[in-house]
C-alpha cells in the first residue's frame, strides 16, 4: 500500500508561515526512494527547528547509512514552528517528512535523536501531530516503533512512557541491526504483534524497552530496584560502540540545505570519544574509548565532501580536536591542499595549550585572525582540580599571550558556575584571570584594543559521570554568584572595558537538571508542560521556567517529591540511580572513586598516554583505544581542474 504525499495540503499553508523553505525538502544529496520498493521504513527526527536539526551529524549519518541499503528507506522530519503547528492542526495536516512529505505515522520506525533533554516537549508535539498516541502503551501494530537515541537517551527514563525503546551509543550498526529484526518480523507476518517485535529488539541486549522493566520505589521516593518483568530481556542494556571509524566514512554526501542553518560547513568527525576525564563532561564519559579516524581517511572525507557539497568551510569535529595524534599534519596538509580554493578550516573544541595557537595560525594562514576560544571551565586552580580540567593559570596566560602576540585580537573564555564544592571565591577568580589576560595581551601586542570575553553558564550534573551524585546549585544561588562576578568585572576601571561578560541565568539549567537526572515520574511533568503549550525549550523566547515549575508543582507532590529532590539533592553511594540499568561501560564504583577523588582535588591522567585507570569501559564493552600516529601524510591532490 502506497502512501500519499501531504505536500498539496501543506503547500497551501506555506505562504502563511515564516521561512517556508525549511519545510519543502529538496536539499542537495537528499534521497527519496519509492515507498513500495522498501520493506523497512524509518522516519528520523531531530526534535528541534530545521535550522538546528539539519546540520546534525548523527541524523545525517543514519539517514545515509539506511538509505544505502536496498529495501530500506529513511526520511527526515524536524520540529515545526508554532505558526505552522497551529495551521497544521486547523487543516489536519499530519507531521510529515521533508523528503517526500509522507506522514510520519506511516513509517515502521520513528527514530528521534536527543542531543539534549530540552527536546522532550518537541517529541510530544511531533507524536501528537503525527497522530501517534503519546503513551507507548496505547499504540497498536499500525503505529511506528518510537526509538530514542542520542546522548540524552543514556537516561531515557523521563520519556519512558512516550517511547517504545531507546538505543544508547553509536547508531550506525544499531539501526541496521534493528532494521533486519523489523524486516524479519514483517516478513513472517508480524507474529505476536508489536509486543513481539519489541521483545525481539530487547533480547539483543542493545535495545532498551522500558515496558519490559518495572521500577520499584522505597518509601522515601528513591528507587529500590529496576527489574525485567519478562524473561529473555537483559538486566542491563549495553551501549553500542563502532570500532574502526575508517570503515564508516559518513556522511559521504552531506546534505546541503537551501535554508540557512546554524552550521554551514563540511563536518568531518576526526575521532570519537575522549579520555581527558573532565568530570562534568557526559559526552567524554559515555563515548569512550577514543577511536581516531586516520589522517588519510580524514583527507578522503574532506575531498569527497567538498566535491559533493560546495561548502567553503571544513570543520574538524570531535570532543577535543587538537588531541588527534596527527592533528598537526592534518591541519597543515589540509591548509596546503586548499590554500588556493578559499576553503576555511575550523577546529572547534580545543584545549588551552600553546600548541593550539600554532594550529590556529596554520588554519588561518590567509584569513583574518579574529577570535580564539578556550574553555578553562573553572576560575580557580582548586576548582579546576575538582573537575579534572588540568590547566594551570600559567598555561593559560602563556597560551593567550602567544595568541595576542600572533595577531589574534580577541580571546573568548568559557566557564561554568555551580560546580561541586564551588564557592563565590572560585568564581570571582575568573575576573582576576580575565584581568591578567588583558594585561598580558596589551603588553605583548602593544595595543589597547584587544578584548577578552568571559562566557559562563550554570553547571548541570549529568548521568554516567562522576558528578551524577552531586547537588546542583539552585537557580537563585547561581544567579547571585554570576551577579557578583559581573560586578567585579565591571568595577575594574583599568581593564573592565576590555572584558566582555556573557552569561546564562540559572533557571533553564534547573529544568535541564530535572530532566537529566529524572526518573519515570518526571514524565508527568513533561506531559503537563507539553499540554500547557510548552515547546522549543532550548529557545530563550519559547522556554518558560514558570510553566515548568507550575507543572512540576502540580504533578510531583503526588509522588511526595519536588524539583529540588531531583536537582539540588546530593545522592549517596547506595542510591539506585534511574539509569543504573543502562550500561555505558563505566564501572559505577570507578565513577564513585572519581567523585571522591574530585572532592579531594585529586586529578586523573588521560589513559591514552598513561596506564589504564580502570574506568571499566574497554573490558565491559570489549573495545580498545584506537589511535595513531599512522605516520602517513596528506598528499596534494592531483586533480586536474
Amino acid at each position, binding site marked *: 500500500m502506497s502512501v500519499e504525499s501531504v*505536500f498539496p495540503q501543506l*503547500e*497551501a499553508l*506555506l*505562504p*502563511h508561515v515564516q*521561512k*517556508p*523553505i525549511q*519545510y*519543502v*525538502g*529538496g*536539499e*542537495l544529496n537528499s534521497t527519496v526512494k519509492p515507498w513500495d520498493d522498501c520493506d523497512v521504513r524509518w522516519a528520523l527526527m531531530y526534535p528541534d527547528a530545521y535550522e538546528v536539526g539539519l546540520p546534525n551529524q548523527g541524523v545525517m549519518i543514519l539517514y545515509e547509512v539506511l538509505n544505502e541499503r536496498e529495501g530500506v528507506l529513511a526520511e527526515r522530519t524536524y520540529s515545526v514552528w508554532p505558526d505552522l503547528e497551529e495551521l497544521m492542526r486547523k487543516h489536519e495536516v499530519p507531521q510529515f517528512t521533508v523528503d517526500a512529505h509522507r506522514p510520519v505515522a506511516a513509517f515502521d520506525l520513528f527514530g528521534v535523536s536527543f542531543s539534549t533533554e530540552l527536546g522532550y516537549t518537541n517529541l510530544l508535539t511531533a507524536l501528537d501531530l503525527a497522530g501517534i498516541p503519546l503513551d507507548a502503551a496505547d499504540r497498536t501494530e499500525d503505529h511506528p516503533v518510537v526509538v530514542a537515541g542520542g546522548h540524552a537517551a543514556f537516561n531515557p527514563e523521563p520519556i519512558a512512557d512516550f517511547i517504545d525503546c531507546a538505543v544508547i551509543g553509536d547508531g550506525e550498526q544499531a539501526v541496521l541491526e534493528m532494521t533486519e529484526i523489523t524486516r524479519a518480523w514483517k516478513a513472517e507476518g508480524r507474529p505476536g504483534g508489536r509486543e513481539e517485535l519489541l521483545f525481539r529488539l530487547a533480547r539483543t541486549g542493545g535495545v532498551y524497552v522500558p515496558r519490559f522493566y518495572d521500577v520499584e520505589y522505597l518509601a522515601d521516593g528513591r528507587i529500590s530496584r529496576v527489574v525485567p518483568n519478562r524473561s529473555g530481556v537483559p538486566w542491563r542494556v549495553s551501549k553500542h560502540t563502532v570500532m574502526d571509524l575508517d570503515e564508516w566514512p559518513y556522511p559521504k554526501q552531506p546534505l*546541503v540545505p*537551501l*535554508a*540557512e542553518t546554524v552550521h*554551514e560547513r563540511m563536518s568531518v568527525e576526526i575521532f570519537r570519544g575522549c579520555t581527558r576525564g573532565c568530570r562534568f563532561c557526559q559526552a567524554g564519559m559515555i563515548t569512550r574509548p577514543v577511536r581516531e579516524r586516520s589522517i588519510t581517511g580524514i583527507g578522503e572525507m574532506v575531498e569527497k565532501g*567538498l*566535491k*559533493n*557539497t*560546495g*561548502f*567553503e568551510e571544513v570543520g574538524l569535529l570531535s570532543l577535543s580536536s587538537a588531541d588527534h595524534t596527527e592533528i598537526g599534519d592534518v591541519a597543515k596538509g589540509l591548509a596546503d591542499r586548499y590554500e588556493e580554493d*578559499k576553503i576555511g578550516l575550523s577546529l572547534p573544541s580545543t584545549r588551552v595549550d600553546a600548541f593550539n595557537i600554532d594550529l590556529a595560525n596554520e588554519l588561518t594562514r590567509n*584569513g*583574518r585572525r579574529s577570535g580564539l576560544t578556550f574553555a578553562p571551565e573553572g576560575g580557580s586552580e582548586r576548582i579546576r582540580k575538582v573537575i579534572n580540567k588540568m590547566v594551570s593559570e600559567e598555561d593559560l596566560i602563556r597560551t593567550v599571550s602567544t595568541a595576542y602576540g600572533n595577531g589574534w585580537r580577541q580571546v573568548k573564555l568559557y566557564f561554568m558556575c555551580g560546580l561541586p564544592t564551588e564557592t563565590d571565591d572560585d568564581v570571582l577568580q575568573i575576573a582576576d584571570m580575565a584581568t591578567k589576560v588583558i594585561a598580558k595581551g596589551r603588553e605583548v601586542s602593544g595595543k589597547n584594543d584587544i578584548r577578552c570575553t568571559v562566557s559562563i553558564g550554570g553547571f548541570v550534573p549529568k548521568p554516567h559521570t562522576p558528578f551524577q551524585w552531586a547537588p546542583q546549585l539552585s537557580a537563585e544561588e547561581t544567579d547571585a554568584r554570576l551577579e557578583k562576578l559581573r560586578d567585579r568585572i565591571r568595577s575594574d576601571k583599568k581593564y573592565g572595558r576590555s572584558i566582555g561578560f556573557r552569561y546564562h541565568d540559572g533557571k533553564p539549567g534547573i529544568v535541564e537538571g530535572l530532566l537529566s537526572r529524572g526518573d519515570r515520574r518526571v514524565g508527568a511533568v513533561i506531559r503537563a508542560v507539553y499540554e500547557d503549550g510548552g515547546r522549543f525549550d532550548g529557545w530563550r523566547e519559547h522556554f518558560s521556567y514558570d510553566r515548568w515549575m507550575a507543572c512540576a508543582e502540580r504533578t510531583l507532590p503526588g509522588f511526595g517529591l519536588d524539583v529540588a529532590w531531583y536537582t539540588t539533592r546530593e545522592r549517596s553511594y547506595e542510591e539506585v540511580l534511574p539509569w543504573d540499568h543502562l550500561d555505558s561501560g563505566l564501572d559505577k564504583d570507578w565513577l564513585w572513586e572519581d567523585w571522591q577523588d574530585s572532592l579531594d582535588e585529586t586529578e586523573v591522567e588521560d589513559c591514552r598516554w598513561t596506564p589504564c585507570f580502570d574506568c571499566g569501559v574497554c573490558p565491559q564493552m570489549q573495545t580498545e583505544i584506537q589511535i595513531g600516529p599512522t605516520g602517513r601524510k596528506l598528499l596534494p591532490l592531483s586533480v586536474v*581542474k
Partner: protein
Amino acid sequence: MQRIRLRYTKRGRLRFTSHRDFQRAFERALRRAEVPMAYSAGFTPHPKVSYANAAPTGTGSEAEYLEIQLTEARDPDTLRALLDESLPPGLDVIDAVEARTSGMADRLEASVWEIRLDRVAPADAERAVTAFLAADTVEVERRTKNGLRTFDARAAVVRLEATGAPADRPVDGGCAILRLVVRHLTPAVRPDDVLSGLRATADLAPPVPAAVTRLAQGLLDEESGTVTDPLAPDREAVTAAPPTAAELTAAMAPEGSA
C-alpha cells in the same frame, strides 16, 4: 575576464527559496561545478555575482537573471549545462550568453506574471480586472520593514487580463488565471499588491493563496504591452546580424510551475 549572463528559474516547491537562500545555493553550485570565478578583494573575498531584481519568496519564476565574472573564458552553453546540473531541480539554469553589452539590469524594465486563482470563477476575476483597470489610482497597503506603507498599485500596471483555466487542465471549483504586465517602478508593485488592489476595488477575495509565476522580464514594448528577451542584445552583438523575429520573441509561454 569574461562576464556571463544567466537566466534561471524557481519552480515548484523551490519557489519558497528566498533570494538569500538562492545566493548561497548558487555560490555552492559554482564551487561544485568548479567554475573559475573572479573574486572580490579583501579579507572575505566573494565570488563576483550580480543578481538582478529577484522575485519575492514564494512566487515561482521562469525568468530570473544574474551575471557572473570569470577569470578564464568558458563556453556559455557548456557552463549553463554544468550549473544546471549542479543546482537542485527547480532551480534550473535555462539560458546563458556572454555579456557583450552593458546594463542588463537596466533592460529589466517590466515583468510578465501569471497569477493562478484556484476556486475563483473566471467571470468574477474578469469583473474585478475591469474595475481595477477603470480606476485612475488604486491605493494599497503593504507591510514593510519600516511599517505599513500605502502606495498606488495602478500606475505600474501595463496590462491585466483574466481567463479561465486551460481546457486540458480543468480545476475542481473553477480557476481564474490573471496575466499581468507590470512596470518596475519605485516602490515596486508586486503581484500581491495587484491582488490587494483587486480586493480593494472589486472585493475579489481568493479562498486559497494565489499561485504566482514570473514568466518574463525585459524591455517593455509599450505598444503591444509585451516584454522582450533581455539577453537578446548580447546574442545580437555576437552574431552581428540583424535581430531575428525569434530573438525578439515576447514573453515565453508558461511551462507550468506545478
